[in-house]
């Protein structure tokens, strides 16, 4: 059996005393793309936030192991350096912080953690240009302050460019498709596909099946009320698109839908 990259066991977590994730289980092996779908309020973004180390969530039970380490014990920056990347649903605008300076500092922190040599400005810019070309993105995004004044599409593209530069082991895409027009969606999805490798994985969180036309997942999970109530192959997404979530919620109530 291949070693798990991400192993979530009985994870319970919430915010301000309200439990959102309830004993959630999920395993991701290297090279796999898992899609997490589910109705609004099911806990999708909470899962992404807990994995990235967002401070406002408190974990009340269970464990998360990432490449053999206890992920929940790590600070957000330690998780990033270990290879976890969260593409934000709402990337933050940070006026006055130059994108290039920021991303170079981030990359070098990650490289230091991997015992790789730090890149100087010249090599860094070369790398950025390569990645931007691969993803058909405009590297001039990085000449500006982080996300400042970016359109929704530019922000999401910038997330993918950052991901390409940082080369994470596990990419978590939190509703990366929300608010994107179809061209932007294609570029973002195309970027994710080009970055797929046998040794890295992705957790694609989405509300819509549409994204999964472009990023074809190995597994699809349905998250509802804080738990995964059904798992299947990519065809599950199509079924959800056709039938909605109600039949699953109904089945779950009757105790038939457990994965």
């Amino acid at each position: 059996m291949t070693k798990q990259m991400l192993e979530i066991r009985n994870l319970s977590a919430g915010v301000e005393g309200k439990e959102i994730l309830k004993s959630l289980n999920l395993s991701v092996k290297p090279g796999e793309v898992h899609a997490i779908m589910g109705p609004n309020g099911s806990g999708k973004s909470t899962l992404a936030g807990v994995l990235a180390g967002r401070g406002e969530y408190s974990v009340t039970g269970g464990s998360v192991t990432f490449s053999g380490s206890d992920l929940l014990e790590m600070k957000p920056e330690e998780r990033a350096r270990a290879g976890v990347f969260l593409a934000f649903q709402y990337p933050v605008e940070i006026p006055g912080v130059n994108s290039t300076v920021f991303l170079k500092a981030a990359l070098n922190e990650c490289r230091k953690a991997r015992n790789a040599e730090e890149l100087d400005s010249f090599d860094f810019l070369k790398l950025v240009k390569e990645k931007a070309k691969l993803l058909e993105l405009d590297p001039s995004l990085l000449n500006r302050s982080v996300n400042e004044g970016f359109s929704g599409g530019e922000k999401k593209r910038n997330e993918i460019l950052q991901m390409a530069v940082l080369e994470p082991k596990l990419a978590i895409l939190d509703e990366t498709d929300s608010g994107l027009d179809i061209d932007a969606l294609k570029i973002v999805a195309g970027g994710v596909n080009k970055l797929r490798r046998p040794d890295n994985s992705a957790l694609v969180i989405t509300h819509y099946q549409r994204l999964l036309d472009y990023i074809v997942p190995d597994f699809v999970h349905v998250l509802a009320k804080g738990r995964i109530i059904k798992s299947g192959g990519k065809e599950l997404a199509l079924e959800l698109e056709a039938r909605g979530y109600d039949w699953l919620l109904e089945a779950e109530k009757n105790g038939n839908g457990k994965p």
Partner: protein
Amino acid sequence: MISALEDTLKALASLEPEGTPVWVKSIREAARVRAHQTGFPNTRQEEWRFTNIAPILGLPLHAAAQNGRTVSARDIEPFKFACSGPFLVFVDGAFRADLSLLPRKTGIEVDSLQSCMKSDSAALHKHLARHADFDANFFTALNTACFQDGAFISVADNVTFDEPVQLLFLAVSGKPGAMSQTRNLILAGRNSALKVVESYASLTDAAYVTNAVTELVLGEGSRVEHCRLQNQNKNSYHVATVQAVQDKDSHWLSHSISTGAKLARHQIQTLLNAPGAVAVLNGLYLGRDEQLVDHHTVVDHAKPNCESHEYYNGVLTGRAHGVFNGKIFVRKDAQKTNAKQTNRNLVLTDTAVIDTKPQLEIFADDVKCTHGATVGQMNEEALFYLRSRGISAAGARQMLIRAFAGDVIGRVTVQAVRVKLEELLESRFDPAQI
């Protein structure tokens, strides 16, 4: 109290320079009388509500004098900017020709005020102590009554002087209560251009006091950049008045960067005295521990079609206290005025305090005036975003502080100064401190 004031005035006036012209003596006397009438400010006065100067009065105030410790060129090196222009050094209020560089250049006169007073000129007579009003401000009156020395800079008509003139005021005396009364006069002729960097620093930890006044007179079409840096030791006190008077179409770019002293009070004022004048007031204050840093600005739109832009940013941590009071007057005559003011504050601890107050008094009816003040903490979402990419918590905080301050620093056009400020910012908010 009165006798304390009398004693203080007497003690401070003892250094009246030799060769002071009679007309200066009479202004001094008028100012002395006025200081006496005004008395020390107290917190019951609106202008001093948040800034209690009692600790200054508790010191054994006396005129600063050099007391033996020699100062070499090596001592002043860290405070010198990488510029090749004139460089005037004042140690404990006294001009040090041996440490200064006064290259002779055509079109610009740079010298110590004392030496200018000896050769009394029409320009001096016209402008010295004629602009900074000492009627309402005790410290301006005190300075006018007792000033010792400072810089005189005058650029001739149509002369552009690119290299900044640097003035360094260094405290070396180790005595608490040593007070220097610094006086600068900067004159820019018609269509001239000039940059001046005025910095205040310490080679001592003593609780000394600086009371500085700088007057700037901007001729028609002139452009003056005035960069004021206050980085005195953390036990010292700093009180300053900067008064500009702007003629037609002149452009004043004023920077006040205040990071040092236990208590610093800055009065930055301009009179837009003819149409087409533009003033940009740019400020950054950093407070930590128990520091109090106070900026009172006054932009007086006296004539039509003038513009003013004011940007003051503050970063406060520890138990620091920031004060910003921004006055804009738009006189009856000053139609088509365009005045903007912003004051942004980053408050990093629960114990730091900021009092910010915009004050607009508008007597004309066709004007555009806006003001805004913000007080906020570090943006948690931005911090998380940076950390989620691998940057440490301290590194992320530092990035956000630098971005906040960088806004103001970016407006300084002298690169050597910007570099110094970036360094200062970095050392100031080292990860262990925030």
